[in-house]
């Protein structure tokens, strides 16, 4: 085994142990975020090493720490229950940046040969959304062709989830009740035909969300799993 391979082999254990720094630490974080196998490996090491901290006796932090946490977490929240609705208003607030990013992605989509056959971008009836993680990273891009009632969802390569889960796309209009648009089966994305009865829901700024569901999609008609990705749909 070469020295480089040897270092590589130890990355998960050493990330869990906490000895990494600089480039190797960054590399471990990238891989933790992107590679399920690596993540599982790190988590297993963390679990194995956890007994090492059992002798550490608790030390009460000063009250000021909780006050600051409370301020940071709750003061930007206006709704009483910061669940889905809270996340969504957060995303509406970030819509400007999101839209700018989505426009760039859409331009990329439009120069692909397949897209070139479609009507020019000046056609009014196109809406676009970038669905981002809570850290602001774009994971999916959705474009809705209002005329053809077709939603195209492109999955960016960084979007990761468990193999036994399937992403399901939802539209969440002003009433706050999510309606399923369908599951995204393909590795690269999906084309979803939109039910004409739902057309009126697609107002400028309407929120899209992707939840992770068991194979076949949500069994209840509402999101049952975590909702890692959200974004607002805007007219171009």
């Amino acid at each position, binding site marked *: 085994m070469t020295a480089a391979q040897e270092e590589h082999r130890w990355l998960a*254990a050493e990330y*869990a*142990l*906490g*000895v*990494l*720094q*600089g480039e190797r*630490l*960054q590399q*471990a*974080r*990238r891989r*933790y*975020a*992107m590679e*399920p196998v690596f*993540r*599982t490996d790190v*988590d*297993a090491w*963390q*679990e*194995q*090493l*956890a*007994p*090492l*901290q*059992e*002798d*550490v*006796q*608790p*030390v*009460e*932090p*000063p009250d*000021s*720490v*909780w006050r*600051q*946490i409370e301020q*940071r*977490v*709750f003061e930007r929240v206006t709704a009483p229950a*910061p*669940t889905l609705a*809270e996340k969504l208003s957060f995303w509406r607030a970030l819509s400007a940046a999101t839209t700018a990013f989505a426009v760039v992605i859409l331009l990329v989509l439009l120069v692909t040969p397949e897209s070139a056959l479609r009507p020019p971008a000046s056609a009014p009836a196109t809406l676009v959304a970038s669905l981002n*993680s*809570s*850290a602001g*990273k774009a994971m999916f891009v959705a474009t809705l062709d209002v005329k053809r009632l077709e939603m195209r969802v492109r999955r960016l390569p960084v979007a*990761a*989830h*468990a193999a036994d889960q399937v992403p399901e796309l939802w539209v969440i209009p002003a009433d706050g009740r999510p309606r399923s648009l369908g599951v995204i089966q393909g590795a690269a994305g999906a084309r979803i035909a939109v039910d004409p009865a739902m057309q009126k829901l697609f107002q400028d700024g309407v929120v899209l969300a992707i939840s*992770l569901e068991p194979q076949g999609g949500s069994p209840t008609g509402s999101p049952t799993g*975590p*909702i*890692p990705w959200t974004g607002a749909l805007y007219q171009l």
Partner: protein
Amino acid sequence: MSGLGQDQVSSLDRLIERVALGDRDAYRTLYDRSAGKLFALCLRILADRHDAEEALQEAFVKVWNKAALYDAERANGMTWLSALARNQAIDLARTRSGKPVVAEDAEEVEATAPGPMSMALRREQGARLEACLAELEGMRRQAVQQTYLAGWTYQQAAEALDVPLNTVKTWVRRSLLALRECVAR
């Protein structure tokens, strides 16, 4: 085992799940139950008390934001919380030592499920690990435990234990290997 008993451990898991639903009372209770331990872990890594307070604060804000990604089948609640706190403290320690790391949200991506592992099995493994640790000889055990608790780099461990860098690296890696083999057998 010192610290949290079995019922408290499993209720940490449930508290995190309630936090994921936006339950502020659960968030407060979770803080009350875990902050002392997490603060102590941060203090081991960051000598400066204010730095440790900052790390705890950052970590706990992440708890709120990432609770939905927590999967009780995959990680013990306390392990999940302490990984967040330790990562935050290590970041700050590396920054303080003049080798900043780019802040990146590694934990935010959705979990993969390696298959369910019951709490009972995990606890059994914990006990097993303790027995395995006891098998390691003095300096090696110290190298692993100190490195882990202090959040040392290999360089810092070598200086603190006053042995060459390669020696400490070899000790730690052999110990990790021995631990894994011992836990597996």
